[in-house]
Structures are given as C-alpha cells and as structure tokens.
C-alpha cells in the first residue's frame, strides 16, 4: 500500500461525485452528523449500531457484514471512499474493519469531513438510493488484528504504540477530553509502549502529514522499524488511524490494530500496567 493507493483528496472526490463505481461512506462518532449534511451521494455507516455485534463485545460477523453492505448497495468491485468527523478516526476504524474482511479497493478521504467543511464544500441532506447487491466478504485477516494475550506477550518484545493523548498515556485522563472522565478501567498504559499520539500524524485540518514527517515522528519516538507493531488507543478507533498511517501510507508489512485497546486492557486483572510519561520496564 501507499499514500497514492490509500488516500484521495477532496478534489478527487468532487471529480468522482457522479462515478457510479465510487461509493462514499460517512462514518462518525456523532452518528447524527450525517443527518445534518453530508457529501452528495454519500451513504452512512453507524460504527456502533451497524458494525458492533450488539450483544457480544465484538464486531458483527462476516455474514452480517455481507447483509449490511448488500442492503446499503455496496458491491465487491466498488471503490469505497470513507470519510468522517474526528479527523477520520471512525472512518479509519471502518476502513480497517472492511480491509479485515477483504474489501479490495478502499480509500480514505484525506482530511475527512472537517477538511471538507473548512473548505466550505457542498453538503446535502439528500439520502441516496442504491440498489441492493450481493456482497461477499472474506474471513477476517488476523494479520492486522491483535488480541489481548498477544499484547501482553508483546511487552518488551514488539513495537507497542499508544496513540492516545499524552495525558491518557500517563494516566492523568481516562478518555479523550470531549468525553466524561468517569470510566471503569484503571489509568495508565501497557509497559514498554511508546507514546505517539495519533494527532502528531495529522495537520490541524485533519489531512495526513508527509511521508518524511511521519517517518521522522516515529523515528524520534523510538519506533523500531524492523519489529512487528501493535497499535492501541482507548476503543480502537484512533489506533485504526495510526494503523492506516503505518500500514497503508508508509507501507509497513506487519502492523496490527488492537481493537480491544485500553477499555479492555485497563480492565484485565493482573496484567502489567505503567503509569506516568515514560514507557516503563518489561
């Protein structure tokens, strides 16, 4: 993968608004943002109601994903372009999940909804009708997904990247600061995880920084480019953003997203936890 194959610009999207093979999908943390206005032709996926199992703490099954995308009119040979608010956190999350289930041609809109709005580009309330399809998903690609035991085993062995804000990493905050701070999990980070906040990889308008800047950011943070990597955050959406940077933009081969992230790890009994601004010892 590369920047050219994984990202499209707002201009590119405007040029392809009438391209029947391009499916624009908006995914937001605020799932009502779409209702107030979206890019013309875009459909909506709800990261919580549509993509979560609803009973078990997991994503929907392959079969339910097939039903979902078929009903939304998404075909296997479509070019999917994802975008959303929060600097594409949840769009990156959906991107990672659709790659996990094997969609071939998928891109992120660089800068997402914010860049589109700050450019004062057109938004509409019209909801498009797409004829249903017979979408076929693949089994999950476990090469891009990390689970809790693997994270514990990675302490001191693999690159662990904590992409939350510095205050969450250190344990001074328990959630992003637009959310209430009363949370069930304990504060801190996985020992030996380096802190590379996702925000370092993006400009203020939400677009990604250049390859040179990205390599410099990870190099300065002590990232070992020769090792396998696991990224995590609080619930797996910001780490999808970093997974996208490392795997899809910079082309690193072995990068996993730990979607259980700190809400799971910080609730586990007996696992090692580090507090403060330093990575801590294995």
């Amino acid at each position, binding site marked *: 993968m590369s920047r050219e194959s994984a990202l499209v610009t707002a201009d590119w999207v405007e040029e392809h608004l009438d391209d029947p093979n391009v499916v624009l999908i908006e995914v937001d943390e605020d799932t009502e943002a779409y209702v107030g206005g979206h890019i013309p032709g875009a459909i909506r996926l709800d990261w919580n109601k549509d993509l979560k199992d609803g009973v078990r703490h997991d994503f929907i099954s392959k079969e339910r994903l097939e039903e979902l995308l078929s009903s939304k009119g998404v075909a296997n040979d479509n070019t999917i372009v994802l975008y959303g608010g929060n600097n594409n956190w949840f769009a990156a999350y959906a991107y990672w999940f659709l790659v996990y289930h094997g969609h071939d041609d998928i891109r992120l809109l660089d800068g997402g909804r*914010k860049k589109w709005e700050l450019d*004062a580009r057109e938004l509409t309330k019209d909801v498009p009708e797409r004829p249903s399809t017979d979408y076929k998903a693949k089994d999950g690609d476990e090469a891009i997904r990390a689970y809790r035991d693997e994270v514990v085993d990675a302490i001191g062995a693999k690159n662990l990247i904590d992409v939350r*804000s510095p205050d969450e990493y250190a344990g*001074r905050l328990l959630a992003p*600061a637009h959310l*209430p701070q009363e949370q069930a999990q304990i504060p801190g980070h996985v020992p030996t995880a380096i802190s590379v*906040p996702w*925000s370092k990889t993006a400009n203020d308008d939400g677009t990604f920084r250049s390859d040179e800047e990205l390599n410099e950011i990870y190099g300065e943070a002590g990232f070992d480019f020769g090792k396998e990597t696991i990224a995590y955050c609080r619930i797996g959406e910001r780490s999808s953003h970093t997974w996208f940077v490392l795997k899809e933009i910079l082309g690193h081969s072995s990068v996993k997203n730990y979607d259980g992230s700190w809400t799971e790890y910080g609730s586990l009994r007996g696992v090692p936890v580090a507090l403060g601004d330093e990575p801590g010892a294995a």
Partner: protein
Amino acid sequence: MCGAVAGGPSLDGVNVAAEAIVQGVVTRGGEPVSTAYVRLLDRTGEFTAEVPVSATGQFRFFAGPGSWTLRVLAPRSEAVDRVVEAAIGSVADVAIELEPATAQA
C-alpha cells in the same frame, strides 16, 4: 436551556463536581458560528481533543486540572488560540469571537 451558563451548553445531567469542564461559544460579529472546530491542546501544545461546535456555536470539554489552550478552526478564518485554566468542580466558560471572514474562499 434551563440551567445553562452564559456561553456554553446546558449543564443539565452533567456531574460538574467530578469534572474539570471547559466550554463556551464561538461567534463572529456577535452571531454564533455553526461550522467550526475547537481543539483542546495540553500545556505542551499537544492535541488532546477536538469537537465540532453545535448549531448554536457551543462546545464542551472534560479536561483535567491545569492550563489548556483552545484553538478554533473555521472556514474563511485564521485559527484563534485562547488559554484557559481548568479545575475539578468548576466550569471555565469561554466566549471566542472570530475575526471577520477573510476574502479568499
């Protein structure tokens, strides 16, 4: 909007005693701005959170105690920074007025 503090969104249902709240309203020419993003930067300038303003220009963060910077991004506007102090159990209410829209689209 019963219970609203001037500027920020209503605090109904919010456990103010347990949170260090930073909130407010973004205006231009005295009118609320409905399309803008407010970023919360920590004492080192590192990003901590971001929200789009509401239709009435309002925003809210649940910060930690200490000094923070609010940065407002809006179409046809230069970014505006404001320093604010937060403390548990208090509400820092900030009114941010943007400069008139710049000429370029």
